[in-house]
């Protein structure tokens, strides 16, 4: 036990910053032009949520669920696993999250946005950042655009968008146990915020604080607002 305490995060880091960003670049190159397609779909989701379109939340759950499954397989399993022994576990976690999101979207046909509370506002902001700003945020850190991370293809913006959507669920009807639903669905994305923050910190990346901050914000607002949400008696 004492020995484990002598290990720091940097002792567990197996790859260099150069290898990490080069992997993102190769991932982007392999899937181009899926990036702008995913962005357009994300913009569509944002529009639907802002317009309170009836199927917006279900559409979002399907979109994020499939994105999580895609990231699990194409990023974590097929790419990240070649440089990180823990990546197969990340793939499993993302796959579970993807299945949970798609299952909720499939089973709950009555999920509609009924109110615009603090959770929905925060969720919309996170979704907007994930879809629109995250890919160009690299320019702020003077990194090339080829290495940018895109919603739907890379883990960080996909997790940020997922947390945004889960916050929007706090303003919806059709969830029988809002606090339990929030806790179950947010556990993996919140854990990822910690993992990616620690990884980027060990890589000496200047934006290491971003995802942990998103995690804290989403965690606090989600826990608070899901406790205030009125359970839907008719929901299953």
């Amino acid at each position, binding site marked *: 036990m004492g*020995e484990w305490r*002598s290990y720091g995060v*940097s*002792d567990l*880091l*197996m*790859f*260099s910053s*150069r*290898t990490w960003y*080069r*992997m993102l670049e*190769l991932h982007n190159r392999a899937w181009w032009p899926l990036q702008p397609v995913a962005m357009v779909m994300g913009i569509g989701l944002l529009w639907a949520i802002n317009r309170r379109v009836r199927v917006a939340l279900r559409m979002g759950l399907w979109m994020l669920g499939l994105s999580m499954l895609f990231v699990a397989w194409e990023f974590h399993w097929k*790419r990240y696993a*070649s*440089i*990180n*022994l823990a990546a197969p576990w990340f793939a499993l976690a993302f796959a579970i999250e993807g299945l949970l999101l798609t299952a909720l979207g499939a089973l709950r046909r009555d999920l509609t946005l009924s109110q615009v509370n603090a959770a929905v506002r925060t969720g919309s902001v996170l979704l907007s950042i994930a879809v629109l700003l995250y890919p160009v945020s690299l320019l702020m850190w003077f990194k090339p655009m080829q290495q940018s991370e895109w919603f739907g293809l890379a883990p960080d913006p996909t997790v940020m968008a997922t947390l945004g959507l889960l916050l929007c669920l706090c303003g919806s009807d059709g969830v029988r146990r809002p606090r339990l639903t929030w806790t179950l669905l947010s556990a993996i994305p919140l854990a990822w915020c910690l993992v990616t923050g620690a990884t980027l910190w060990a890589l000496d990346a200047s934006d290491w604080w971003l995802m942990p901050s998103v995690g804290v914000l989403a965690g606090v607002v989600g826990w608070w607002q899901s406790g205030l949400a009125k359970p839907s008696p008719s929901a299953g």
Partner: protein
Amino acid sequence: MVNNLQRRRLIGLAVGAWGAAVSRSATGQPAQDVLRKTIPSSGEKLPAIGLGSWITFNVGDDTMARRGCTEVVRHFFEDGGRLIDCSPMYGSSQPVIGEALARLDAVGRVFSADKVWTSGDGAAQVAASRAHWGVPRFDLLQVHNLLAWRTQLPLLFERKRAGQLRYVGVTTSDGRRHDELESIMLAHPLDFVQVTYNILDRAVEQRILPLARERGIAVIANRPFREGVLIRALERRRLPAWAAEIDCANWAQFLLKFIVSHPQLTCAIPATTQLAHVRENMGAARGRQPDAAMRVRMAALVADM
């Protein structure tokens, strides 16, 4: 099949020996003039600077980065290096080394040092590692960070007895579990131990290195630059003029010469992705080496900084 492998191994060794004999280093120095230290259990001489692969060779499927690693290995051999160190814990480093050896046709030149890092099936892991490297057998296998050493060490000794392995060792890093390491060194006929040793991390000088001398165990020094932190800190300072007395042209050589000049140290294993750094590192195995008085002076300088 075995005969074929042995024949290929012999041909590889012959070609490698010829290559080493006629080759000159990338710096124009003859590859033979590097400092060689003796492995006590066999009397075999080993170049005092090896090549680590932690982080630097874990580049995944990136073809361009893999080519870069191959060039690092090429320059390492051309400058007279032999020992390459790896572990199943290092991600894609094993296949990257294997690809480099195959491209350079250098299986016969390398002193292959790998590790066992599992509490499960050690034999299966060794077989997988060997397939990644593409070598007929490993020169050295060590139990990585003493993980399940009671299970894995007998396996390695068994392989050595069967002629499937030349040397057996154990590793630790950053000063961890030295008491346990000592007891293993006392109880088992190890050929090698690998420990952290550099100009600032010198705990092994107290008990581990004297015990290694007493037991006839070769010592590999890992983390010679504290994963680059030492180099980055020192690069801002001017190399002292008296470093020329021991033929140091840069801080890397200053730090490495301090390590390999310890009488009990066999090999230091700096890792790099830069060809220029390979040359710098291998330069530490050439020219004059510090004596005891100079080592005190070197350590005092860095401690003061």
